[in-house]
Structures are given as C-alpha cells and as structure tokens.
C-alpha cells in the first residue's frame, strides 16, 4: 500500500510537471524531448535495470517506430494515433525478429544490438528502397503536423511507460526479472521461466521505443533518416538511466531531469564549450557516482520507489 502511494506520487508529480511545464517555460520542444528521453530511459530501464542487458542499438526501435508511423500516415492515410500504435507494433515485430540477440551477453549483446540498429538504418535510408521509405530524402508529415496533439499523446505514452515501470518495480514479475539478472541459473532452478521473461522485457522495451519514435516523428514532422537513427538517442537514454540508477522508477526520472536539464542549460548558456563540459560531467559521474544517484539513498537505508 505504502509502496503504491510512493510510486503513485512520483508518477503524478512527474506527469503534472510535463502537463503544466510549458506554461512555466515556454520552450515546448524542450519539454517534449524531455518526455521522449524519459520514456526511452524507462524503456532501457525495463530491459537493463531488470535483466542486465544494455541495448546500445535501442535507437533502432525508435527509428523503426518513427518510420513505420510516418509511412502509415502518408501511404495509408491513417489517423496519427492509429499510425503511432502501428509504429509501436512494427517495432514489436522487429524486436521479435531480433530476439535471438538475447542469447548474447554483456558487451556482445550491446554491440550486437548496435549492429542491428545500423542495419535497419542503412536499409531504410538506401536509395534502392526509395519507393517505400523515400530513401535518403526522409519523411515529411507536414499535412499531419499538430504539436499540441502530439504533445498530449506523448504525455499519455509517458504515463503508460512510467506505470509499467512502477508495476515491474513492485510486482512479482519484476522481482522474478531481477532474480534472472543476479543469477540466471538459480532463478531457472527456482522455477522462473528465464528466457521467456527476458524476451518479454525486450519486447516491452521495443514497444515503448516504437511508440515514442512514432510520436516523435509526428511532433517533429520533417526528418531525415539520420535524425531518427542517431546513435546519440540511445546513448542519452542509457546515460540518463545509469546516472539515476536502474531497476527503480525514480532513478531514470532524476537522471533525465538533472542531465537533460544540464544539457540544455549548458547548450544555452555556454554553447561553445558544450561538448567539453558534457563529456567532463559524464566522466565525473561514472568515476564518483558509479551506481547512480539512487545508490546514495539506498546506502542511507531509504527505500526509493
């Protein structure tokens, strides 16, 4: 009960912040991208925090969702919301096709997923597929452009993502998943269907990235292939998750607010030293806070949601 209350209040405060944020600080795009990165960070969290698989090529699902949703809109004239659901479903199917990657471990998995995302990118952007994907010309959703509606849809997707993480944080399923991370063999012996659970987490995170990608495409409305397959998207989401601390609801939220906030703050106040400051910051964080901010609270004995 108490757990539910805690998680619920974190969830509510976060969503409320995004709901009213644009009235406090009117750069709506910054808030929108904050939601995008938070949802992606939680997607990474579901996979990495609970199973230990770090998908470097997570952006592959994001780009897949962006392209699929855009194509459903432009080629089949579907409603944007239906198209976004379609984008999520497409990412899910791609996730299913790529599920053999889960046989790999550690850095092998990370780099394998990176290769997969690059393969999708180079295929989608290839001129040979111009009739289907528009090749290097990218997508133009000008006819569907609606920043207010896409902002609202993103908020809903973020809510669902946060709710899912909160559920995994406290449910038996989440506990079982974490058991597979700590010691897969004992978990299997305790009757946990290790492989099925892992695939489930993988597909869930793929679905989230697909939905987010679709909504991002709708919001930005004009993009080139390298915009939605930019590896920095993966790296940002991973850094935010690790900085906050995985396997918790609050960790990635804090990670996103602090780091994305700083990113924008540096970008706006000291643009010329931007890359340098951000790099130094990341190195310092890894060296002095290697287990995430949440570890500080846990060390003190607080049970963070």
């Amino acid at each position, binding site marked *: 009960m*108490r757990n539910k209350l805690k998680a619920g209040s*974190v969830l509510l405060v976060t969503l409320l*912040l995004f709901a009213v944020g644009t009235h406090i600080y009117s750069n709506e795009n910054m808030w929108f991208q904050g939601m995008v990165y938070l949802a992606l960070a939680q997607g990474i969290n579901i996979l990495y925090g609970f199973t230990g698989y770090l998908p470097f090529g997570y952006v592959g699902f994001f780009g897949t969702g962006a392209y699929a949703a855009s194509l459903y809109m432009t080629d089949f004239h579907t409603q944007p919301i239906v198209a976004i659901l379609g984008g999520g479903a497409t990412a899910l199917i791609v996730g299913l096709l790529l599920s053999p990657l889960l046989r790999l471990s550690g850095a092998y998995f990370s780099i394998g997923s990176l290769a997969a995302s690059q393969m999708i990118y180079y295929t989608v952007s290839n001129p040979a597929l111009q009739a289907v994907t528009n090749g*290097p010309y990218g997508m133009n959703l000008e006819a569907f452009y609606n920043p207010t509606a896409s902002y609202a849809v993103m908020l809903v997707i973020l809510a669902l993502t946060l709710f899912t993480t909160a559920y995994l944080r406290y449910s038996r399923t989440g506990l079982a998943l974490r058991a597979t991370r700590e010691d897969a063999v004992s978990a299997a012996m305790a009757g946990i269907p290790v492989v099925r659970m892992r695939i489930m987490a993988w597909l869930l995170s793929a679905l989230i990235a697909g939905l987010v990608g679709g909504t991002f495409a709708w919001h930005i*409305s004009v993009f080139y292939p390298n915009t939605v397959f930019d590896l920095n998207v993966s790296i940002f989401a991973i850094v935010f998750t690790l900085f906050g601390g995985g396997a918790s609801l609050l960790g990635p939220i804090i990670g996103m607010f602090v780091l994305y906030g700083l990113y924008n703050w540096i970008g706006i106040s000291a643009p010329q030293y931007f890359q340098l400051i951000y790099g130094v910051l990341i190195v310092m964080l890894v060296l002095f806070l290697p287990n995430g901010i949440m570890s500080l609270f846990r060390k003190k004995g607080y049970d963070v949601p």
Partner: protein
Amino acid sequence: MTIRFSTRSRRIATALTLSASLSMVGMSALPAAAVKTPNQLVIGTLYASSGSFATSSISSYDGLKFWAATVDRQGGVYVKALHKKVKIVIKAYNDQSSATTAATLYNQLITMDKVNVLVSDFGSVLTSVAVPIAQEHHQLLFDVTGTGASFFTKSNPYLVLTSLPTSAIWPNSLADYLVKQKTKRVAVLYDTNDFDQSQYNTLVSRLKAAHITPVYTGGVPTSTTNYAIIDHAIAASNPQAVVEFGYPNNDIAFLQSLNANGVHFPKVFTIFPGQQLQLMQQNVGVSGLANTLTYPTPPLLQYNRVNFGMPLSAFEKQFPSVEHHPVDFLTVAGYNAGLIIQKTLETSPTLTQLGMRHAVNSFSGTLNTIDGQFKIDSTGAQIGERLPVGQLIKRGNGLAVKFLQH
C-alpha cells in the same frame, strides 16, 4: 520507523524532482528581455561548432556576424517600422550538427528569446526541423542554404531562401553543357543524401531527355572516404566525363583518390571546389584541381551590377580582417542573408512576421547583391541565381575559373 522513512524519502524524492526540474525552468532567467527595448533588434540563429556540418556552418555564421558588425559600425540598420536606426544583436546557439538538438534550440529562440528575426543553420538537414516550428509559431524563417525542395510549399508563407536555388535545379547548366559538348559517355557518382541525390536525379533525367544514357551510375554512402575502388569501377566503363555529387568531404576524397591512384578521366566535375576553393586546395592541391569542372559561386564568380551591400572586392578586403576567416561561398551566403534581412527591415512598414514576408516579396527581383540577383517565387524558394559551369585553370600558384556554360 518505516513510516518516517517512507514519508521522508517521498519528500526528498519530490523535492529532488522539483529542484532538478528547476535547472530546466531556471533558464527563463536568461536575457530575453533585450527584445523589448527598441534600441536593438535580435537576430536568432544556430551554428554547429562540431559534427559533420561544422566547417560549412561556421563559415556561414561568420558571414552573418560580419554583416551585423558592419551595420552596427554605421549605427545599425534603418528600421522603417520604427523610423530610426537600430543596432543588431545576434543570439546564437550551438546545435553541434544534430537536428534533434537544433529543434529544441530553434524553439528556444522563438518562444523564450522571442527573437525578431530567425535565421536557420547551414544546409537542409539542420534547416528541415526549423521549417515546421517556424510555421507553427508564425515566425518568418530566413533560410540561408537549406535547399531541400520539399521545404517550399504554397501553404507556408513563413520561409524565404536567401541564396542558392533549390538543389534539384542546380545541375541544369551542367546538363546543358554536357549535351552541347556531345558527351555521350557520362559516369555519374553521387552520395545517398537529399542534396546529392536530387541533383543526380535531375542530371540523369535531363541527359536522358537528350538521349544520353549514363554509362555508369552509382550511389555511395555519404560516409565514404576512400574512392580508390570506385574509381576503378568507373574507369571500367570508359567515360568521357565523370560527375561526382558529394559533400565537401566526399569531393576531397574523390579528387584525392584520382590524384593518388593515377586513374585519369577526360572531364571531372565536383560541386565544392566552386564553393570552398581554399579548403579544397589545401587538401587536394592545385594540380589535383586544375582542369576539373565545378559550379563557380562567389568569390569565384563576380556579379557586377551590385546595388545593395558590398561588392565582392570590398568584401574580400574587409571580411578576413574582421572575422579572421578566409572568404568562401558560405561566408558570402551568410553575409547575403544579412543583406536580405537588412533590406526587409528597411522596407517593411511593420515588424510583424507576415509584414516582413510581404516586404520581401516587394523587393524580390530588384535586389542585386554580391551573391547575384535576389528573386523568390511564391513558395519562398530562390529563383534568381543560376549556377554556371566553370573550369578551374591553373594560373601562377593558384587557380582561376573559365566559364563554360551559363
């Protein structure tokens, strides 16, 4: 115990979330108020200090800065709407060549800094995200070099391309030249991106209309850095002319590879020697560029009937000493964007964005700058310039251009 811990941790958690978000909110304290004072006008733009567009972006940004410094030395720009001279301030952020970051920063310029005039970063990729944002916020976007054809639509009045025609029509003169020279065996190599592939498509369809079917066509990834193998594949088709459409890096790598591996083609065309000759010369050398064809642009191409702003000779004299950067086409393009803005402010009776757009229409076709005639069509795309074809000829230690086709 547990009760106390949990409430406390919740409070801490909430406090942390809020205070962390303050780092986002706190930015509203940055100087945006400058806009309100009528003694200066704020021009907002982005540049890329790193990443794939950095070289070009910095050039064009320096050009714009040079324009602002020049007008400010003379007490500012005469703004018709205010009936007085007003100083120009440039507010610029660094997008690091990332379109996603650029989207947020364009939004920042419009919504938080409330800039009077919005100018896009270099090229189509970094301009693309600005187009819908500017339209949504009813902010006129001065597009310096974003020549992607899909940006320009009749339904969007908030866009003006200040230099260069849309990339798809660049190769018209090249096609005319090849047809006139009766070049039957043409090889076309292009990079698979919007800018280069649209030129490839235009060139090939114009050649086919003249019953010339290229003997070799190939699209390579924009990241290609070694052309040695591709050169051999092209050589196998025995062409009379080889056209390579790339970005500066690709043109450098392509010309270098011809130099190094001794493959020789009678005619070689690349885009960027005509725009960034100094950079190309540093990398490829005079002998590697001599006799190749290109689209010459200012400073290689001199427009004589300048009726607004500096002519080329004055620009070449003053620019390097102010910006400590050599003159290339993109510095001219950045300066030219400033001139178009200046003319807009001098002409427009209001400072509303649509008012400024109408003002641009009113002088379109009458303005001749260092970058040639400024003329836009109803979508805001540039139609005044046409890129000629020229050949680089060795002269002394440097290169000069011989015009082949206008």
